[in-house]
């Protein structure tokens, strides 16, 4: 097992404290089945893979991939970029990467930047080779507004309101907890490169089998005439433990 990155330099009043879902992603990405898949999918001497993590929060996942690029991809040349709707997360992520250097005598991936933005909206089309998303997946009545106007209005509210708003951003998923994830999946064809792969965390309440079937049958994207047909496989789960939150990692690719 690879060591878990440290986040001891952070406080978690405004960003997501790494939890079971975070660790499931780390375990899955470094599992023998996925390191084998990724090494074969991005063989040596092909252009450097571009990894985008959406909603990086503390930055623990991207920091993990950056410092263990060689173990996970069997190549050290990786480009990594993160986005988050919260500027607190955008500030935290690069510091976590800095606090977690690669093992001695081992070269790391190249962490580029963190951007404050919605999903992958500023990415050029077809650039992303590996997309990672631990979304706000808890079913809720509403999803908070995230325009720049909403964020600047925050300064007029109490610090309790502000903290509640940022907390809500990390979990509130709307109907079936799929509100934000559906928006990502609708745009997936434009975001991913021809060799692109998505690793997506879903919980049982997201009805993941239905989501997978919809992806396989062209139910996302396109203009009503049918979107792309994706390959979908469940590649990690924490379903063996008791509790209402049963989590899975789903790999989606062309």
């Amino acid at each position, binding site marked *: 097992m690879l060591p878990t990155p440290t986040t001891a330099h952070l406080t978690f009043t405004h960003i997501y404290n790494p939890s079971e879902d975070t660790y499931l992603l780390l375990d899955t990405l470094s599992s023998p089945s996925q390191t084998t898949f990724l090494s074969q999918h991005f063989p040596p001497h092909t252009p450097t893979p571009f990894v985008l993590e959406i909603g990086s929060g503390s930055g623990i996942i991207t920091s993990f991939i950056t410092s263990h690029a060689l173990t996970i991809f069997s190549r050290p040349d990786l480009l990594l970029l993160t986005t988050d709707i919260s500027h607190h997360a955008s500030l935290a992520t690069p510091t976590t990467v800095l606090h977690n250097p690669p093992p001695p005598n081992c070269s790391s991936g190249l962490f580029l930047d963190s951007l404050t933005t919605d999903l992958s909206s*500023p990415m050029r089309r077809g650039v992303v080779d590996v997309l990672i998303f631990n979304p706000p997946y808890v079913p809720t009545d509403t999803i908070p507004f995230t325009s720049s106007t909403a964020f600047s209005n925050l300064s007029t509210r109490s610090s309790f309101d502000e903290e509640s708003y940022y907390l809500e951003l990390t979990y509130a998923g709307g109907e079936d907890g799929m509100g934000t994830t559906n928006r990502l999946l609708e745009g997936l064809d434009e975001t991913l490169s021809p060799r692109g792969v998505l690793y997506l965390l879903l919980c049982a309440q997201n009805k993941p089998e239905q989501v997978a079937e919809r992806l396989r049958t062209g139910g996302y994207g396109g203009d009503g005439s049918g979107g792309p047909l994706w390959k979908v496989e469940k590649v990690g789960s924490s379903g063996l433990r008791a509790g209402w939150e049963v989590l899975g990692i789903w790999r989606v690719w062309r």
Partner: protein
Amino acid sequence: MKLLTANFISCPVRTCKTSPTSFPLHFKDCELACDPDGNPYSRETLLGVLPRLEWDALRTSAGELGFTELPVEKPEGEVVGEEVLRRIWELLVQTHVVTGKMVCGNCAYEFGIQSGIANFLLPGHLV
């Protein structure tokens, strides 16, 4: 923000995505910093990244930040001199925009960069 990052992003406004003038975003009023210790030169990574780069856009971005020495043609292959590669690495990876703006050539919206982090959040009417 690194110059290299700018080569992978365009205006987040949906209606700008199909416009060729939404890429690259144009740097304006930028303050730069250089961090030679941050990411040590890696020939392997640079040779893997070069094929991915939109070279003309990169020259435009570099020019806007005051760097005009990038060659007109993209250097490619194993024959490229080490000195050229090291200078490109310095520009792409070790030079940061600390504060400034990025402006879309299509919609003219200005996105701010503060503490090295670009903000692409849009006001309600553009979301």
